[in-house]
């Protein structure tokens, strides 16, 4: 795991910054459901883009990996949306 982090330290740093920003924003807008749904969508889409770019840079991008990030991003959005839509 540590090798994985060391190997991808720039990507993980970007991901951590994005996660921290996301957490601050959702706390700030915690009473604004419209904004929270928007942030969930943007966050999920950003994660898909992050994953695809990471694997593209490393030359390891395959169709399966693209599907994996798209499905995982969709799962994350649906987990948020199913709570926020009520």
């Amino acid at each position, binding site marked *: 795991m540590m090798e994985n982090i060391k190997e991808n330290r720039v990507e993980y740093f970007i991901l951590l910054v994005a996660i921290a920003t996301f*957490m601050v924003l959702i706390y700030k807008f915690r009473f604004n459901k419209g904004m929270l749904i928007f942030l969930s969508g943007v966050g999920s889409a950003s994660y898909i883009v992050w994953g695809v770019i990471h694997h593209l840079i490393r030359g390891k991008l395959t169709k399966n990996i693209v599907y994996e990030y798209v499905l995982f991003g969709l799962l994350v959005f649906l*987990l948020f949306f199913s709570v926020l839509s009520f």
Partner: protein
Amino acid sequence: MFDHNKSRDENSNVIKYWRKHPKSIEKYQFVYHFLPREDKKKRADLLDNKAILIYCVLIVFVSVVFRFVPKFAPGVLGYASNITISDLLKYTNQKRKENGVPPLKLNAELSAAAEKKAQDMFKDGYWAHVAPDGTEPWDFILDEGYDYIYAGENLAKNFSNSKEVVEAWFKSPSHKSNLIGANYDEVGFAVVNGVMDGYETTLVVQMFGRPRQPSMLATVGDEKGLPGENKASAEGIEPASESLGESVSSPEQENSQETPSSEVGKEEELAEGSYLAQSNANPAIDITTATKTVSLAFGIFVSVLLALDIIYSRKKGIRKFTGLTLAHFMVLVVVIISIWLVFKPGLVI
């Protein structure tokens, strides 16, 4: 000393046993639903793309069920709440104090107007400042005979407690301007339970005002001393178990000349306690808890599988041709924390 012959015999016996009892191999295969496979260089079966797609479909299915249940069984699903007018007043004045604004006094006429507004929203099934027939918040205030110079309205729905309601208003700039508006001297609240769109709900209406005549100011300001506090529900309001939350704010509005004058002093009505209600909505199924439970269950389940994948792969030195498991895990942990700790059920508009 290691005995090669003995080891070979043991392996041979194991193979013979598996040939004789093929089911026993299938039993071991089951672990690969939860653990990564070294031979195929892939994650656990329950983490592959098909499985993730199934989780997505299941989440959508459950959400659709929650949407349809109220159409067939109105009032079964709802928003559990415990909101009291005394707490709403307390937290409102606390916010005003923190911002250097004098506290508001509870006014019976404004409370009556707020209650009528809430009942009107349930009756006509709308969720807005202005009713479908064009009735504005000021009409409710004037109908109660409250002659004002300035008036405002905040609405809330789906909140579980009084503090969250006031906090939500305070976080919204337009509602905040009402909440800590220096032009207001008095406030009225209504916390009304009912069924809206099939969901059991609590509507909170907050109406602000500054009376035209200073003598109209209510003299009862200390909510703790008011009798009737924490009574079951407002007079004339049917107790229900749905909690809706809506917040609306309006700009200060100068009263026109034709507005009726209001009566002076309403301490007697306040003493009756009819405006110091609390709402304890207890639907059969609290939709907030239900949706959070479903999301958290899926989120935690996938997170545990990802954690197992990370630990087991490291232990066995398995390298897989997949996306970054640690990144997936980190993102899911953020999702779980957000849903568990940050997301509130209430709405402000």
